[in-house]
């Protein structure tokens, strides 16, 4: 021993688990350290986004079935409650949502509620389990913020841009929120509009700079002291975002983005399934990207209610061959969580189909399988999609610059299910009329009104909605909800998401 006495302190955040104490005790160091808890639950990432920053949430709850994070969620609700007063109405769907709500109510009842005298500022709270809508989380993102996230990874509201973006030999870390004037204007836009916008802005900027040519000394002085800084700032931001766009485009072209989107849309709409399956198979063969290949397979599985056993076996084998045999464990995890399953024997038309397919060529057999499958199977996603009108009817070109509905976040092909549910429930102020949809989503819906809060539609708080995604949400969903907010005149849609995490990476082996 060095002769120095040391004090050790462990700070657990957001919560200390009993299991941790057990480990300390078992290792014989319990008495040597002091433990403390820093109950940090909510991180505001932007003026309308709050995150709980719990990347483990998805895996722990949905894969392992561990309820350890329900308490933090309940406490976060408690915190919001005490800060912003009682919630007008609380809606929810999903087992986790229900449990979080119940635990929160329990905690509220026991404690002397501090929010009691406070004026209610949040009119509606919506709790939703991630597994209510896996489809949206699996679709490729095409709004700017989503693409930035997919390409560079946005962590805690900031992103690292490398030399290829900054056009210098340095990388920089940039805070991406509404403070960034350029970003705030393009973040929710479909990518196709972004380039046009940025080039327009560049031209304007150039024009502003050029003004200084005709200036006299006094004007120049004013210009330098007042405007130049702002222009320089804007110039810097513009060049960053243009650089980011270029990087995104380069990467996406390399990965056949266009074709991927086409395959996804086909899966969402429910046609050309065999072609999409072949596309996925080739994607795997070419070793394009392990995550992307899995994502596509899961999308196929969810929209089609499981893969045809033959496809499941063959794609699995090819995946293991292309990306590594240890992914046997990945497949097992995905099966457990329901993201990548195979149809059980009874669900596929076997006898007739195999007889017929023996008589025809491969291509035709594929088409027959398609037809048979859509007859025999009932796919929840398809049924839900139909009921809620998630695939917009296309009459003419879909205007991405002036979109008419939330489908623009996916190029007009698909309205995110999660957002649609929120929209409908808010409109109806409950679940009336949505019974069939709820049944298809496996129930667990609830709707509770706080009697102490007056239900006055004119009330300011009525326009504030808090959407809580348990398990994370995507930037596409955020963009869609912002759009919804603008449409309905609701102010600042807040989101408490256990950090946005694309489910698939969380399920890697080990």
């Amino acid at each position, binding site marked *: 021993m060095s002769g120095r006495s040391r004090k050790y302190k462990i700070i657990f955040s957001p919560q200390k688990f009993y299991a941790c104490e057990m480990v300390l005790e078992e290792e014989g160091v319990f008495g040597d350290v*002091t433990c403390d808890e820093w109950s940090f639950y909510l991180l505001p990432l932007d003026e309308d986004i709050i995150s709980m920053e719990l990347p483990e949430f998805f895996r722990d709850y949905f894969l392992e*079935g561990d309820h*350890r994070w329900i308490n933090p969620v309940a406490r976060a609700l408690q915190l919001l409650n005490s800060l912003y007063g009682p919630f007008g109405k609380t809606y929810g769907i999903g087992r986790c949502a229900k449990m979080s709500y119940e635990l929160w109510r329990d905690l509220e009842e*026991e404690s002397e509620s501090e929010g009691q005298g406070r004026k209610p500022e949040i009119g509606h709270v919506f709790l939703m389990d991630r597994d209510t809508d896996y489809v949206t989380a699996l679709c490729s993102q095409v709004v700017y913020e989503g693409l930035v996230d997919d390409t560079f990874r946005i962590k805690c509201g900031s992103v690292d841009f490398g030399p290829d973006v900054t056009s210098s030999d340095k990388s920089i870390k940039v805070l991406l929120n509404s403070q960034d004037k350029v970003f705030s204007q393009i973040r929710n836009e479909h990518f196709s509009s972004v380039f046009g916008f940025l080039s327009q802005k560049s031209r304007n900027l150039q024009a502003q700079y050029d003004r200084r040519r005709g200036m006299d000394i006094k004007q120049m002085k004013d210009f330098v002291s007042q405007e130049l800084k702002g222009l320089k700032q804007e110039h810097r931001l513009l060049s960053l975002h243009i650089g980011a766009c270029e990087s995104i485009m380069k990467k996406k072209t390399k990965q056949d983005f266009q074709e991927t989107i086409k395959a996804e849309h086909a899966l969402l709409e429910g046609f050309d399934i065999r072609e999409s399956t072949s596309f996925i198979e080739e994607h795997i*063969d070419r070793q394009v990207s392990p995550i992307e290949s899995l994502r596509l397979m899961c999308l196929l599985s969810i929209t089609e209610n499981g893969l045809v056993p033959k496809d499941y076996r063959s794609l699995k*084998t090819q995946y293991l061959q292309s990306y590594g*045999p240890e992914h046997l464990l990945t497949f097992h995890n995905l099966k457990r969580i329901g993201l990548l399953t195979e149809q059980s024997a009874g669900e596929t038309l076997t006898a007739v189909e195999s007889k017929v397919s023996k008589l025809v060529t491969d291509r035709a057999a594929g088409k027959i399988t398609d037809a048979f499958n859509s007859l025999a199977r009932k796919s929840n996603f398809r049924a839900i999609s139909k009921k809620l009108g998630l695939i917009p009817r296309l009459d003419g070109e879909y205007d991405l610059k002036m979109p008419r509905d939330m489908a623009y976040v996916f190029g007009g092909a698909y309205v995110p299910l999660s957002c649609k549910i929120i929209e409908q429930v808010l409109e109806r102020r409950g679940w009336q009329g949505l019974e069939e949809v709820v049944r298809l989503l496996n129930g667990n819906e609830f709707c509770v009104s706080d009697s102490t809060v007056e239900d006055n539609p004119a009330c300011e708080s009525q326009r504030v909605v808090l959407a809580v995604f348990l398990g994370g949400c995507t930037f596409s969903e955020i963009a869609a909800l912002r759009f919804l907010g603008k449409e309905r005149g609701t102010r600042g849609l807040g989101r408490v998401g256990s950090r946005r995490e694309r489910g698939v990476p969380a399920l890697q082996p080990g």
Partner: protein
Amino acid sequence: MSRVRADEEEYWHSSKFRAFTFDDEDDELSQLKESKRAVNSLRDIVDDDDDDLERVSWSGEPVGSISWSIKETASGSTSSLDGRDSSLQKGSSSYAALPKQASSYSLSSLFKGRNKLPSFQSLSDALTDTGVKSYAPELRRPKAEYKDYSSDWSPKDTVRRMQRGKVCSLERFRSLQDKLVLLDEAVAGHDGNVITAVLIFLKRTLRREILFRELEVRQVALCHLIHFLREMGEQKFLLDLLRFLDRTEEVALSQYREHLNIQDVEKRREFLKGCIGLPFSAEDTSHIQDHYTLLERQIIIEANDRHLETAGQSELFRKYPRKASILNMPLVTTLFYSCFYHYTEAEGMFSSPTNLKKTFKIPDKQYVLTALAARAKLRAWGDVDALLTTKNWLGYTKKKAPIGFHRVVEILQRNNAPVQVLQEYVRLVEDVETRLNLATKYKCHDVVIETYRDLKDRIQLTAYKCKVERGSAEEEKIHSILSNVQIRWKN
């Protein structure tokens, strides 16, 4: 007992006072409790020497004797416990002090020494049952002395307190019934942290078979235990649990998962060999088998190639030094490597591509795709050609690609194939539009010209003239086609 109140943090968080909840009501009372407990704990240490020390209760009965215990249970059952659950009525389960009983006098001396509690319990239980209560005079000790202040809570309340972060001693839940009620309350409370804490306690105090049996019908709790065991790395316990539940496939997978922790390649290979016999499903067994075989081959290839590389004799290895080892790489990557460095080897060699193809039953499509990529990287256009040419039984050669020629073109272009080579394959792209796109993009003029001619599209062909070099052979070609009167132009 004196305590230094000044350093409160230290005080409350040091292990001695762990189980004490300080924010409850009466401080004076709690001080008393604390003192009592400290003294009692001292007693436990001293009590090891059974023969010398005998504890005697107020009534003169030696503590731990049968008569003493009768009294305790009598007072325990008659005193009202303020709404505590009736499980406390079950007698000796509520007193933590009992296990250390021993006395040299009275009947209890028969039970002296390291007797297990059960026999003692059953005896006292039996005695209580036969209405022995009447033998014991009432005791007038203050209730507070019996009860451990902080452990007065019912299972529901205990769970509640734990949800709010308070440390609660679960030791008093000794009967199986109590434990299960506690567990069920924890599950109903939805807080996974508490559920796991209760499970830790149950794991410590129950024989595993009993624990397993009870968890079998409690799915939520079961998930928590499994997750806990995984996180703690208690592999053996986990496997026993899974075996008990008859989840044989998971047993196999859990064991297989361990291979990821083995860094040494030889050891990993051995381990994988052992995994083959595990109760996987039929398909998975073949995957495991393949995993083992692949690693086995990779070890051989790696050793060989490392040797070749260092010997410096092979030109190929000198020109294209290896960037990484082939160990633990996926099969397709291994195939690529093999097509790159060992393309011409005979099938008998482990490192030859054909051997890999045969051993792992790699489909043609995958094989051609990978071999193509490898040969293209080496700019071996002849090999590329050979891969895509098949001879039919009449001896005619035909170009065929199981992957679509547009992919072939893409791969070649990525490796900067010369235009003449590219052109040949662009020509074979089936879809006309794609063909045109690619041809225009990569300046395969002949293909463009031919395609427009086939489409009989005069306008486009004329327009294309400006794309070719003045005075070149291509320009000539366009001219001659345009002036061909036999062609029936579309426009």
